[in-house]
């Protein structure tokens, strides 16, 4: 199986099943996927609204977007060449921060579980 990828792995063919006969994902993986995809999607939608608003404003509101705000710096230049760069890092930072927070929480829960199991034994 693909999950056990080792340096000297063996290629193992697997049977195919119809998608309707596939058992549901285990609840934990399903929950993780939903959380991860949900966070990623929200950040991506926000990011793309910002990204696409730049050409929309450039082409459909040029008088406003190419007006100067500071010396020769226009809104368009400011958002395209400065804010966009900060936002690219900001979005990735928030994503990594939330992921590491979830991981820490999971590690904490895992440690508590194993501690409880040891106490019972």
């Amino acid at each position, binding site marked *: 199986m693909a999950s056990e*990828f080792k340096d000297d792995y063996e290629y193992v063919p697997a049977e195919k099943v119809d998608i309707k006969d596939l058992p549901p994902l*285990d609840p934990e993986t399903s929950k993780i996927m939903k959380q991860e995809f949900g966070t990623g999607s929200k950040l991506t939608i926000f990011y793309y609204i910002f990204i696409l608003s730049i050409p929309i404003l450039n082409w459909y509101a040029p008088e406003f977007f190419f007006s100067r705000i500071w010396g020769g*710096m226009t809104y368009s230049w400011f958002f395209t060449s400065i804010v966009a*760069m900060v936002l690219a890092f900001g979005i990735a930072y928030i994503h990594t921060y939330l992921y590491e927070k979830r991981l820490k929480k999971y*590690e904490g829960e895992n440690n508590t579980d194993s501690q409880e199991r040891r106490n019972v034994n």
Partner: protein
Amino acid sequence: MIQTLLEPKYLLTILLMGTIVYITYLTKRNASASDFFVGGRSFGWFTNGSAIGGDYLSAATFLGLAGLTFQLGYDGAYYTFCFSIGLTLLAIFVAGPLRRFGAYTVADFLAYRFHSQRARLTAVVVVLAISGFYAAPQLLGAAQILSMFFGTSYEFGIIFTCTLMVFYVGVGGMKGTTLNQALELWIRLAAFVAMTVIAIYIGLHYNQILANISDFKGTIANTAQYTTDGKDVVADGDSWSGTGNYFPTFWQTISMTIGLSLGTIGLPHLLLRFYTNPSAKAARRSALMAIGIASVFFLFAVYLGAVGRAIFIKGEASSQVMSDLITGGNNMVVPSTAQALGGDWLLGLVIAGAFAAIFSNLSGLFIASSGALAHDVYATVLKKNITQKQRVVAGKVAIVILGVLYGALGLLVKDASIGHLVALAFTVAASTFTPIFILGIWWRGMTEKGAIAGLLIGLGVSMYMIFFKDTLPTFLQFNVPGIITVPIGFLSVYIVSKLDRKVPGDVNEFMKKVHSKESEIA
């Protein structure tokens, strides 16, 4: 002779080459395939983040983006902005799961996701196509830079660069490549930081130079002697500050944005880098670091393009600088601006940085393609059960073959446009691997037939829309046809998978492996 070698441009370039040779020598021991193809998965987030940045910020970005801003103004800045998006999407959707999967090559992902050698071989074709389209403009740029600064012929430039790459990647493998890429990134960044600090120090403030450029309308002094028609160059600040110089329509702009932003997710040499981290957490941090570096880099590139323009329209720079800015094309903007700002030493640092950019990017392409040939084709399909040592030898032989192939490709594209070839690589990547990786990681319903159909249709449609653009109706003629090809790529995978319905029986285990926190902690 010694006097010539002591010139900053020779001295700093020789120092760079010497460091590359030394690092390559130190990392020459590659005992296993894991060492050779993924550096023993031993790189922490700082080193790998630097190497990802080194891989992504090619010569086209180091020299080209500032040059485009210099020439096209706002549209050059917008082009740079499109490049800045992709790494963030890669970090969000692909980096962590891909590392948890863990493998040697991009094609491994498909082979193990679907238990299919057909999917593996189809992926190999796409990897070689993207890497070839990406390597050709890098070699073209390398030969042009060697010719510009050292007066060598185009053919010499191609042969020299390929020979150096064969040594660099063949001997050092992924370990040597990663360390060299990390070092090379910081050389480039040092050059940009030095230029920016000097420019601000001498009073070239962003808001002020943009105002000077925008307000300028008329002929630029002291330029007539360098133009072919003997007349002074005419500049229009309004046109430079607005859009429409490179993107003729709104939809061309949107298509470019989609193609470049999603293309990054499908670049094999970048995807491969996430296998070299010890964990998914380190892979995500590497991506974050690379995004931080790239963002700073793009910010500087646009600013320095404007600085170059401000120096140019003033018409008071040295005759060498004015001549290079007019006759040297876009690639000469960063070196000429460096010379105007800091003299020969800063120019030397920029030239060393330009070579660093080329070597860094090309080495990533060599290692990704060598994995496709040696690991995916030779060791997995043609000759199974070979030893670790034989796999490493196969990897080295593949690098020599690629050196010859890329060299031939480089000689063929002498008159091609660098931007056109890079756009082609991004479009193919966005229309093939991007749908495969996003759907393959997040959707259980994707099937082997869906994946193969997506790869082949995405590859075919994107190549047709670029190479045979003129045969299409006007409304379908895009410089970067991402707006058409990317949805086709995604829809091909989705529709064929929905019709096929046959998924691998162990797809749930696969999903657990790539998403589970247990595998992260383990």
